[in-house]
């Protein structure tokens, strides 16, 4: 068992919480997510050109970089988190360039040292797995892949090949943010994915309210929330932890009732 597989072996679907590293007091914000009941933490690595993100996460990237966040800072945040929370899985999510800048082996080793469990790289599809995947696997870090509404049945095996941890289903063809897919469409898509893999399937993009989270949790193994949490970091700054904990608790409570 790994930290990640434990998180998905709980009696309720996992709540996966995303915030951007270096956007405010990240240690305090992460602690608030854990206190609120988050099962998995996704820590965004800021990048100047977040092409797959909508305005909320774009702004978080810019706030973080504007505050001078470096790759070393992100790794330090992860290292400190691991010391405080030995059992909560932590995933780094971001774009290829900051991850491969010093070479994939360097990044994989540094992430492993920091206690990172998995990596989601938005712009490395299976076709370019060589750029990072082998280095991550060699260090026991799960390369977590994305499946989307455009990932057809013919392509899915290639997406699953070499992926680990869980499968992240991006429920809308689009960028992170406000738009949301219909629950029926999500149910159907998750059903197809689960028929094709033993990996847990977590669903994200556009989930903002506990009601939406509960509707997804009725079918998926996990619910990912990003922009709604990131918006709180942006709006409340120093005061964000209390707000993050509040929203996380509400999401987790809703998820726990979803299959009752």
């Amino acid at each position, binding site marked *: 068992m790994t930290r990640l597989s434990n998180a998905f072996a709980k009696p309720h679907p996992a709540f996966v919480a995303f915030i951007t590293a270096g956007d405010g007091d990240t240690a305090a914000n992460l602690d608030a997510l854990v206190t609120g009941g988050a099962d998995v933490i996704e820590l965004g690595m800021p990048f100047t*050109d977040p092409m797959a993100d909508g305005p909320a996460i774009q702004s978080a990237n810019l706030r973080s970089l504007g505050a001078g966040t470096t790759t070393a800072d992100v790794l330090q945040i992860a290292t400190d988190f691991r010391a405080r929370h030995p059992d909560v899985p932590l995933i780094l999510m971001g774009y290829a360039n900051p991850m491969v*800048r010093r070479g994939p082996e360097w990044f994989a080793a540094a992430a492993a040292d920091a206690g990172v469990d998995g990596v989601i790289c938005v712009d490395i599809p299976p076709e370019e797995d060589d750029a990072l995947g082998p280095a991550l696997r060699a260090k026991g870090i799960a390369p977590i892949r994305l499946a989307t509404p455009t990932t057809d049945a013919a392509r899915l095996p290639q997406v699953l090949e070499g992926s680990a941890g869980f499968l992240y289903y991006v429920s809308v063809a689009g960028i992170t943010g406000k738009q949301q897919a219909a629950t029926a469409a999500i149910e159907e898509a998750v059903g197809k994915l689960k028929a094709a893999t033993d990996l847990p399937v977590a669903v994200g993009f556009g989930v903002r309210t506990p009601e939406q989270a509960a509707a997804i949790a009725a079918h998926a193994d996990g619910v990912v929330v990003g922009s709604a949490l990131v918006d709180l970091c942006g709006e409340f700054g120093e005061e964000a932890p209390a707000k993050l904990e509040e929203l996380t608790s509400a999401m987790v409570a809703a998820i726990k009732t979803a299959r009752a």
Partner: protein
Amino acid sequence: MNDTPPNSFRNQPDDRGHFGEFGGRYVAETLMPLILDLEREYRAAQADPAFAAQFDDLLEHYVGRPSPLYFAERLTEALGGAQVWFKRDELNHTGAHKINNCIGQILLAMRMGKTRIIAETGAGQHGVATATVCARFGLPCVIYMGAEDVARQSPNVFRMKLLGAEVVPVTSGGATLKDAMNEGLRDWVANVHDTFYIIGTAAGPHPYPEMVRNFQSVIGTEARAQMLSRAGRLPDLLVACIGGGSNALGLFHPFLDDADVKMLGVEAAGHGLDGDEHAASLLGGAPGVLHGNKTYLLQDEDGQITEGHSISAGLDYPGIGPEHAWLKESGRVEYTAVTDKEALEGFQLLCRTEGIIPALEPSHAIAAVADRAKTMGKEEIILMNLCGRGDKDIFTVAEKLGVEM
């Protein structure tokens, strides 16, 4: 597909879109199936004589090709060295080489049944060319342009609007070309079902770099035949400016296996390569991944992308097409960089010696030509791609020269 010798420089990329270690398809999963579909459709179009016939017909009767090959007699005299010849792609409809590629891509878009076109633009030349072909074929068109560039290229913004395009100013990041490209990619992932993204240079995910190069290769193919018929031999040196690298590849690619033809790509050195204020990705950057491909990028030690600077909005992109990264590493093409100041001198030199007002982008190439011609013999031939005309730049130039308009 290519009948080139095994050691050819003309058989890149491989079937995964890699030029050596560069290129590839570094895109989000949502786009990946679409990119694969695009490649299939492009291969089918390449094998279809009707597609080539339509492309050629539009280039001849709509764009005005072949563009002339011109011997610049007074410039040659003024420089006192090698003969300088120009491939006159500034005489194309819309005033630059960009239209060659737009014709090819819109035909492909229609072949794929796409009903909406998007594009990014820096100087506005690619935006104008895209808006033009969209008007010609009656397709709605959204152009993403950095807010900064909207301000400094207002004539082109108005042109695009006249042509019926919607111009969306992009305020994220540094509000220039790379941010416009980010926004184009964001639009595309959200509208994959009906939208075709016409990328304006030989960069982006495979098959774009190869496809744009092939559409632009009409430049070099024509020039090679024209040179052989006019001068009875091939040129000694090819010169072209480089933003993303499409006009340079268009000229260079058909000559890559002519071992005696040397090639020089000219990047924008802005205020100088020693500082941060330049746009020379090859000479002042390092390999990395951005906008769907692995290539040389302007970036810091953490892989954050830095803003390029050039007097020319068409050159200040922090990346470069992956084939140039490969041509540099293979040593086949030499690359140099020219400052804002030198480009401005090149601009004025051409105005006065030849009666041609060039765009600021090829003015960089002119400066490099001036430099090289002097070191070469009078029997030697330089062929430069005069890839754009300068109407769009007169306001910028007036400001730099301290002239009130």
